[in-house]
Structures are given as structure tokens and as C-alpha cells.
């Protein structure tokens, strides 16, 4: 108990030294915590960018639809599903769609594409298309004969805003349906595959030409927290079964993206490990120096009768005190930085203007606070701190008092 008191007094006795050590721990930790939260933010952004074009976190189809994209294989009771989605708190938004292969004819060419019927306001909350209109306007619920096409497709077909395109599809009743649509908007996501092969009309017009009445073929779901995707997928499967419904997460639809993201995450972790080691060395230097410089003081204490083991104990208590203060300050600064940056976000296009060529890309990164990612580095650093101060104090305690006093 006495040593706790002495240790605490020692901490206060040399404010400059304490300040430097505390700031070494605190600032190092603060930026490390910030780095980790940014890494978590980048991970979330990567996922959002991958799913933001078309998928959403989850897709619900009728079984067999994804193999053929046949409009006949539509969802029978989509209302039941959307009711469930409405009630579930984990769901952020969802969008009902009809997807079907179609042929597009202009005066100068024809092209096979994937025709998607959307509810414009719903879809705007799920995918990026509405934000990437480069000419004209996005669709409106009331548009009956308007169509959105990609930039490349417009060039390939030689059509411009306001011009007519003929859409040919094979309808659910088995007939070949044909209808003229006017180009209302042209989108440019920057991803050639999308701009070349996707075309949007309103859900109502898709239902009309495909004779689907009120049916839809796909429901795309976006969650509030991407990490809960497996959980929600399982709940959906339990609720609606696996027989008539084909419920898939983006991870199943695009396994390669999952692998790339995992790889990216792995690399981030390797970098984090290296950075932690570097930070720990920086902190250790400061601590080591602050203990070594006190060898003379320890000699004095030993000369008046303090045992070596008590000196070591005292140093350990001191380093725990300093470590805890440093950790509290470090986490506080770290969290303040994270919240401050989180409020405005980091605009990646400020660093590379080339990113502006891809309007569909989410360019903002927001650091994410994960409690474990605050606690793990804090505890590790406290451990490093104690271990590092142990070494010189044990060494000093082994010296004879006179040697220690003369120590330079």
C-alpha cells in the first residue's frame, strides 16, 4: 500500500517526465485507434461499393429465377415478404424489381440487355443508379413509357435523350411483346458492364408489357448494418422456407468480391500489426529512457535501505499509473478524432481526382468505432509499458547502491 502511494507521488513529482511518457502512450494510442477505425470504415465502404450497383445486401427471388431470368418465374406472394421486411428493424430499405432479358432496337442498331423494372423511389434508396444520371432525369413513378439507359448503350445504339427505343421481351403469357419507350435519362456509373447492359423502366410498365399483373421477380434488401447479413438471411429462410424462395446474400452471389474484400482486410491487419510494433517501440523508448535515467535515484533509495524487489514493485506501480492515464487520454483523443472525422467523412476524391470519373462510386469514408478495437490495443500497450519498465528497474535493483549512484 505504501508503495502505491510512493509510486503515485513519484508520478506527480516529475511532471515533465510524466507528461512526456503519458503523451507518448496517449498520442501513439490515439492515432493507432484512429487508424483501426478507418480500416474498419474502409472495409465497410468497400462492401458498399461492391453491392451498391445492383445487389443490395440480400436478394430474394423465386427458386429457379436466377438460372433463367424468366419472367414467368416471379415471386408469388411478394406482399408477405415486404410486410416482414417493413416490420424488421434491421432492414434499412428494400426495392421490388422485375428483371428480364430483352432486346432493344433503335433506328441504327439493336442490343440484348437486361431490362429492369423498378419503383423509382424505392430503388433510389438501394442502388446508386439514381445518383449517376449524367443527362436527362431519373424515372418518376408515373412514367409509363420512359426508359433509362447507360452511357455506352446510348452510344452503341446511337440514341439521345427524348428519342425512341423499341423494347422486345418474351412475356409471361408466352407471347412476344413489343413496346416503344422514350429515353428519359442516361446514366454513367463508370462501370462499363452496367452502362452497357442495364436498362431501367418503371415497375408498372414492366408489369404491363410482361403481363405480370402485380408480380415482381426480385426483392433487393439493404440492411442498416452489413455485418448482420447472415443473421437476416437465416431469419428470412426460417420464415419463408427454402423451397419456393431463393434467398441469397451478396456473398453468395459474388464470391469473388468476398475474397477480394477479405484479402484487403487481411492486408490491413498485417499493416496494423506492423504499425503496432512500431508504435510500441516508440513508446518503449520513452519509458525505457525515463526509468534508466533514474538509476541514481534508485541507488539512493537502496543506500538508505530499500530492498531491490521493492524498487521493482514501485516502478511497476508507476508504469501502471502512467499507462492507465495514457490509455484514458489516448482513447479519449482517439474517439474525439474518430467522431470529428466521422461527422465530415474523408472524401477520397480529394486525394485522387481520378475518382471523380466514376460517379457511381461512394467516395466518402467514415471511421467506425468498434469497442474491441479500442480495448485490444489499450491492453496490449499497457502490457508493453509494464514489461518495458521492468527491465531497467530489475537491472538497477541488482546493482550495488554505490554503483547505482555513480551510474551515468
Amino acid at each position, binding site marked *: 500500500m505504501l508503495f502505491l502511494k510512493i509510486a503515485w507521488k513519484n508520478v506527480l513529482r*516529475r511532471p*515533465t*517526465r510524466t507528461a*512526456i*511518457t503519458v*503523451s*507518448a502512450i496517449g*498520442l*501513439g494510442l490515439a*492515432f*493507432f485507434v*484512429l*487508424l483501426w477505425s*478507418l*480500416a474498419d470504415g*474502409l472495409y465497410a465502404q468497400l462492401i458498399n*461499393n461492391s453491392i451498391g450497383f445492383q445487389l443490395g445486401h440480400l436478394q430474394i427471388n423465386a427458386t429457379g429465377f436466377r*438460372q*433463367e431470368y424468366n419472367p414467368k418465374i416471379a415471386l408469388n406472394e411478394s406482399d408477405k415478404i415486404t410486410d416482414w421486411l417493413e416490420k424488421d428493424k434491421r432492414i434499412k430499405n428494400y426495392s421490388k424489381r422485375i428483371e428480364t*432479358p430483352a432486346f432493344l432496337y433503335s433506328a441504327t442498331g439493336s442490343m*440484348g440487355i437486361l431490362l429492369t423494372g423498378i419503383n423509382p423511389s424505392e430503388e433510389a434508396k438501394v442502388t446508386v443508379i439514381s445518383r449517376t444520371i449524367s443527362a436527362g432525369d431519373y424515372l418518376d413513378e408515373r412514367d409509363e413509357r420512359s426508359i433509362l439507359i447507360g452511357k455506352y448503350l446510348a*452510344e452503341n445504339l446511337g440514341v439521345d435523350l427524348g428519342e425512341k427505343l423499341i423494347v422486345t421481351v418474351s412475356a409471361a403469357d408466352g407471347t412476344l411483346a413489343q413496346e416503344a419507350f422514350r429515353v428519359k435519362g442516361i446514366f454513367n456509373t*463508370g*462501370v*462499363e458492364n452496367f452502362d452497357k447492359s442495364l436498362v431501367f423502366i418503371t415497375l408498372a410498365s414492366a408489369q404491363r408489357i410482361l403481363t405480370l399483373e402485380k408480380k415482381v421477380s426480385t426483392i433487393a434488401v439493404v440492411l442498416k448494418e452489413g455485418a448482420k447479413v447472415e443473421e437476416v438471411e437465416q431469419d428470412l429462410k426460417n420464415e419463408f422456407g427454402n423451397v419456393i424462395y431463393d434467398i441469397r446474400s451478396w456473398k453468395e452471389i*459474388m*464470391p*469473388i468480391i468476398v*475474397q*477480394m474484400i*477479405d*484479402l484487403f482486410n*487481411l*492486408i490491413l491487419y*498485417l*499493416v496494423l500489426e*506492423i*504499425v503496432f*510494433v*512500431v*508504435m510500441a*517501440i*516508440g*513508446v518503449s*523508448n*520513452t519509458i*525505457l*529512457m*525515463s526509468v534508466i*535515467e533514474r538509476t541514481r535515484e534508485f541507488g539512493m533509495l537502496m543506500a538508505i535501505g530499500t530492498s531491490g524487489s521493492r524498487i521493482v514493485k514501485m516502478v511497476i506501480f508507476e508504469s501502471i499509473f502512467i499507462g492507465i492515464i495514457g490509455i484514458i487520454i489516448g482513447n479519449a483523443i482517439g474517439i474525439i478524432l474518430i467522431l470529428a472525422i466521422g461527422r465530415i467523412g*474523408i472524401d*477520397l476524391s480529394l*486525394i*485522387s481526382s*481520378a*475518382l471523380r*470519373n*466514376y460517379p457511381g*462510386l461512394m467516395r466518402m*469514408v467514415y471511421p467506425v468505432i468498434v469497442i474491441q478495437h479500442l480495448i485490444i490495443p489499450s491492453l496490449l500497450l499497457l502490457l508493453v509499458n509494464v514489461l518495458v519498465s521492468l527491465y531497467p528497474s530489475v537491472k538497477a535493483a541488482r546493482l550495488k547502491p554505490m554503483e547505482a549512484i555513480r551510474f551515468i
Partner: protein
Amino acid sequence: MKTFIKIAWRNIFRNWRRSFFAILAIATGLGALIFVWAFVDGTNQQEVSTYTSFLSGHIQIHKTGFQRELSVFRALDNPSAILSEIAHQENIEEFSERIEQRVLLSFADKTSGAILMGVDPEKESKITTLWKMMEHGRFLGPADQSGIVVGKDLAERFNLSLGSEVSVLAQAADGSLGAAKFKVIGIYHSGIDTIDRVYVFVTLPAAQDLFALWGRATGIVIKAKKIESVTNLQSSLSKELGQGIEVLDWRKIIPELETSVILHEVEATIILAIVFLIVAIGILNTVLMSVVERVREFGIMMALGTANLQITMLVVMEAFLLGTVGVILGGVGGLIVTSILGKRGIDLTSYMEFLQASPRTPDIIYPILRLDRIILLAGLVLMVTIFASIYPAVKAARYQPVVAIRTGETV
């Protein structure tokens, strides 16, 4: 001045323990920065080489306008002339002719569009890697005149299995309608649905027959020896081949890959900036501590008549010398470690099991050393060290000699 350099140098040796720690902080910081940057560069390059190895290759040569339309009427008129031009380029590892065309594929009662690739199986296997990703059957061989290889998604959609006979319908270059039947000999699965759903492969001669393109091709695909040299290769090829021919590098062929690479580079910049801050704080604290603990010493020097400015200079000089030694050690150390790992590669499969089974993701990262980056980092670290010493140096010069000697405290 000379005296002070001498004194500073001696001080460093006299306090060898303190100097050692300061140098350690600087050297490890710089070494880590060099390594992390090289590692990130290596990862980005690996991403490019993996993605381009599926289908696109590093560079493609077509008649101008072909890439956008894939029109059969824009086939290369005389590919052999271009091939002989390419053959004497140094940086090319392999090249191969291809025919790439939209076709209508039908099987049983189903019909759908697809993109047919006529390839030279032997050369193609040295450029792209789909042949390693066969889920059923095998990839094309030179003798497979009537064989076709299809993607998994397409096979599922058509209910195809090995041995199924699909018919292919296409516009031929002579204006006629080309038609042929092929037997499925292999089903591949790349995991990229825009490939697996769309691309089917036959041999080049079979495609030439189908499209009436005897002796011709629609494009030439090139794999460069080094990805870094692709930009130069592209511009020199496009200069040599002249008008009417488009020479596209991977950035033009897969623009979204370029976005992804830029995105990763930007993210790496942010991470590196913070890592740099962490390194800088470590150095700052070490330097600060080494000055604060020497108050008594400075007090004595001042009592002996050393001027304030001289004390300041001495401290900065010491920091400069320490910084230089640290930067040299860190630079050389970082260089050696990174270049060894750059040769050997960092095997990620031991961290993640899925990488072993998958030819689709990069599994070994080779860090890339760039001299300009090492110089930039070394300069920045040295600057940080010197700046870190200025504040305590100025402060040290303001001590009251008597107070400093007696208490050893700064205030």
C-alpha cells in the same frame, strides 16, 4: 561551428544508451514505413495481375472501334503483319490471336446471347488462367475443333453438362449467317459472374470457320513481362502500329479495375499518413525525453559561459546526427528486408485458408521497392527528427543556470 559538431558527436557517443534508443526509434519507424508502402504497392500490382489474368490480358490490339462494338466487320485485316511487329518487342512475355464475337447460343428449347472467344489454346494458357478453373471436364486443346468450354452460370442456365451439343449462330464477315454445333468439353467457374455468364471458348480455327475469317483474327492479346512496363509498351505499340489500330491497356479494357486500384492507392495514402504520424510521435517523444533529462548538464555548460544560441544549436545538431544515422540504418534495413521479401514473396495462404483452394485471388504478395518513395520517406523522417528537437532546444537555452544545476528541473 566545427567545435559544436564535434561536441554533438561526442555527446552522442557519451550517452550511447540514449542515442541507441533514439536511433532505434527512427530506424524502425523508417524501416516500417518503407516496408508498408512497398507492401501496399505490391498488393495493388498483384490485384491487377490477377484480374487481368482471367480474360483481358495486359494489352489488346484491335482495329479501331472494335472494342466498343465487337463488330465482325472490324476484324484485323492482316494480323500476321502486326504479329511480326510485336514479335521483336522486348517486354512481351506472350501474345496470342483471338476472335471475340457476340453469338446466339441455343440448346434444347433455350436461346440466349453469349460472347464467343476463339483462342489458340496453347498460347492462351500462358496469358490467361481460366484453364486452371475448370469445374468439370477440361479446357480446350489444339485438336478440339468441335469442342466448346462454357462458364458455370451459363451451363446452369441452359442445363448443360459435358457432352451436350450446343448450336451457335452468328453474323459472319462475308455477310452470311454462320452456324455451327459444338460439344461441351469443359465447364469453368471463375467466380466472376460477368465472365461465367457470358463467355464461351472454342479454338481459333473453329471460330475462323464460323465467322468466315480464315487467316484473320479480331484481336491480339498480350501479356507483358512486367506490369509496370505496360504503359510504355502500350504507347510504343500504338506508335508503331499507327492509324486504324487501337492498342488498349488493361485500364481501358477493365476500367473498373483501374478505379479499384486508384481507390486502394488513395486508401493506402490515408493509412500511410497516419502511420507516419505515429512514427513521428515516437521520434518526437524520444528526442524530447533525451533533452529533458539533461537539464543539469545544460545548466553547467551555461554556467561555464556557453551562449544560449550555442546550446540550441548543439541540441539540434545532435538530433540531426542521430537522425542521419537512424535514417541510414532504417533505410538500409528497410531496403534489405523489403527486397528479400520482394524476391521471396509474402505467402498469404498461411493466414487465410480459402486462398489455397482458389486460383482467383492473389495469394503471394511481392512488395515493390521504389527508390523515389524511400528517398521521400527518409527525407520526411529526418525532417521530423530535426523539428522534434527545436522546441526542447529552444527551451533548454532559456534555463537559469543555477536553478537548472541545483534542481535538474526545467521550471
